[in-house]
């Protein structure tokens, strides 16, 4: 019986920074805020992080409920299985994205009961006023998930705006087509605002939107500057913590709270660097988390790496966006146009670089840039079985990286983001041990 499934025992991860240790409470408060909004009749929108229009949601005082991340929380609390099983019993395939399955399982159960499923993690996921899909050419569940949810919530309207960008090709200049993309995005954002005004009943305050856009620009700049501090040796914060600090970066983007968090983190990292405080006392190997979402139920694996003298000063996951001052943005007064240009320029940021290196690709340039800037000894990736869009390309990236750049030790971990039945701690750690051996072998004879 799925209802009787109990969460598995969960080990708490040791954080390196004080800022990261506050994230659990922040996330819990955020989920609580969504539930309160629902109870008070304030508008709640199901949405996806990196949707590209957080500013619109915030400027209209809509409370976002990040559904992928609620699934991640269920996974981290090792309490996702009963929701996955629930979705499976509704005939959704186990091969689908487990974020979506967990969310669909939870929502279908809540809708059937007319109340939260028993003992929901952190109080549960609120029933939304609207659902805002956002595919971004990387992920089909971000288009289809909410449409599937309308089977259970036919009264909740869905709006899907994909926020596209010019695809990378090595034989054309994206600038030839970028204006079309900007126009398309702006038109879509205008439609989105009209949809929200209709269903939420609040008019957009355009001055406020401009202020919020400015705040998010400043926050992205601050995040980049803060994460750049991790280049220090010894590294003061690693990917284990960054998988926590993604919370203010993504769940709280375009809020003062997010800006303040990164200001505090920046101060803390500067203090640590001044005191030469590293994540591990004797830093032997500097690794990059080169792609893939983590197994949220196994973040203690980062501590295991640390116990072997390995740190992760950088990750490509959740570092998709560059500081705004690095982008070649035209000066525009319309905040929607600014959002569109920023989006297109983020996506195309490494296109020129990739075209200069035969066989390369923007994602590979991203890896190369970090390998050099952060003095990386090895790359670790995670192949999550349930992700069919982003994760399958990782092995290709790794192979291509070795072709165009050179050999670098690499490790591919295999499991899932939410489904704990895919994970075996002993095997994972045996692989990590073997990887550490290969790093040592490569280091001892010089790359």
């Amino acid at each position, binding site marked *: 019986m799925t209802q009787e499934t109990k969460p598995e025992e969960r080990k708490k991860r040791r954080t390196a920074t004080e800022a990261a240790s506050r994230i659990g409470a922040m996330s819990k408060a955020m989920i609580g805020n969504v539930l309160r909004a629902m109870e008070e009749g304030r508008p709640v929108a199901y949405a996806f992080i990196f949707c590209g229009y957080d500013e619109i949601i915030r400027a209209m005082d809509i409370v976002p409920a990040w559904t992928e991340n609620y699934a991640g929380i269920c996974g981290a609390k090792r309490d996702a299985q009963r929701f996955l099983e629930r979705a499976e019993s509704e005939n959704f395939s186990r091969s689908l994205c487990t974020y979506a399955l967990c969310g669909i399982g939870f929502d279908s159960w809540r809708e059937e009961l007319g109340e939260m499923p028993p003992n929901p993690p952190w109080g549960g996921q609120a029933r939304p006023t609207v659902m805002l899909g956002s595919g971004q050419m990387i992920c089909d569940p971000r288009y289809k998930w909410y449409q599937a949810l309308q089977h259970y919530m036919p009264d909740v309207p869905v709006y899907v705006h994909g926020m596209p960008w010019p695809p990378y090709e090595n034989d054309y200049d994206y600038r030839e087509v970028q204006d079309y993309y900007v126009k398309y995005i702006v038109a879509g954002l205008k439609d989105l605002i009209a949809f929200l005004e209709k269903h939420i009943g609040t008019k957009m305050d355009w001055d406020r939107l401009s202020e919020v856009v400015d705040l998010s620009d400043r926050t992205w700049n601050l995040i980049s500057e803060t994460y750049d501090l991790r280049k220090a040796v010894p590294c003061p914060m690693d990917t284990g913590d960054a998988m926590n600090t993604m919370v203010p970066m993504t769940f709280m983007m375009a809020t003062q709270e997010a800006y303040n968090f990164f200001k505090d983190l920046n101060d803390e990292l500067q203090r640590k660097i001044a005191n030469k405080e590293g994540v591990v006392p004797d830093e032997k190997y500097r690794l990059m988390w080169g792609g893939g979402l983590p197994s949220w139920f196994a973040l203690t694996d980062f501590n295991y790496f640390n116990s072997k003298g390995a740190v992760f000063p950088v990750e490509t996951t959740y570092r998709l966006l560059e500081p705004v001052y690095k982008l070649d943005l035209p000066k525009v007064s319309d905040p929607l146009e600014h959002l569109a240009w920023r989006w297109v320029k983020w996506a195309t940021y490494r296109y020129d670089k990739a075209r200069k290196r035969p066989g390369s690709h923007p994602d590979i340039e991203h890896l190369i840039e970090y390998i050099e800037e952060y003095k990386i000894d090895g790359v670790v990736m995670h192949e999550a079985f349930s992700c069919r869009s982003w994760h399958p390309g990782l092995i290709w990236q790794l192979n291509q990286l070795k072709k165009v750049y050179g050999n670098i030790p690499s490790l591919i971990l295999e499991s899932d983001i939410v489904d704990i039945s895919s994970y075996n701690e002993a095997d994972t750690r045996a*692989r990590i041990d073997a990887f550490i051996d290969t790093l040592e*072998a490569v280091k001892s004879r010089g790359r």
Partner: protein
Amino acid sequence: MSSQYFVGIDLGSTMTKVVIMSEAVVASVIGPTGPEHRKLANKVMEEALAKANLPFDDITYVVATGYGRINVPFADKQITEISCHARGVSWLLPEVRTVIDIGGQDCKGIKLSHGRAVDFVMNDRCAAGTGRFLEVAAEGLGVKLDDMGRLALTAKNAARISNTCTVFATQEMVAKLSGGVPLPEIIAGLHEAIAARIYSMVRRLKIEREVALTGGGAKNIGLVKALEAKLGYSVLVPPEPLLTGAMGAALLGKDIVKKAAESGVPLARSERRLREATLFT
């Protein structure tokens, strides 16, 4: 100066292997691991010492490897099987650049450079592509596991086994048998299926010649031939392919002792008393 002796003990999921080395191999023992293996490392060790006619006190250094390596309480050090296989194969066959190790419950590909592992891939998730696949199939067909390889080579054609899952492949195999497909053809098809599975994993490493095959799978001539067909060239098989991990462990122990002597740093050693692991008692 009296001889120094080094022990490598490889506690695999199916077989336990012990090698005692000095300048060459002095003694070796291979025995089934069995369900009690975590408690029995000391028994296998006793047997190897008796074969070498050595008291345990004469052993300079003990390295444990394999899945059960943490359950060898008298080991001086634990080293991963990837490093041990790399060292063992390089010692036996220095020309080898890629090792494919087919164990009872996992399969590994190891890339070698200057005698050390510099990259690897592992399948420890799925029985297909491991010795377990053939074990289950042999049981289902009522054929001795040791006869499977030889029988595969007698087939004129190989039946196509399209399922990669061990459970479903077994069902498919039984269905084919009922449909009148000759047994050797089915067995040949199984060997092709397992070889395809292993090849698709190991090719991630960019396979370089020479290739050595180790582990229990290397003792199956049908599998060796099926893999050679996939690769398009011959592979090398050490004289006793089950022992390369244990041999590498002993050699790495020797390296460690030599390095410690050169640096003058004393080496920590476990008490020379054979005892069973208490973790599971």
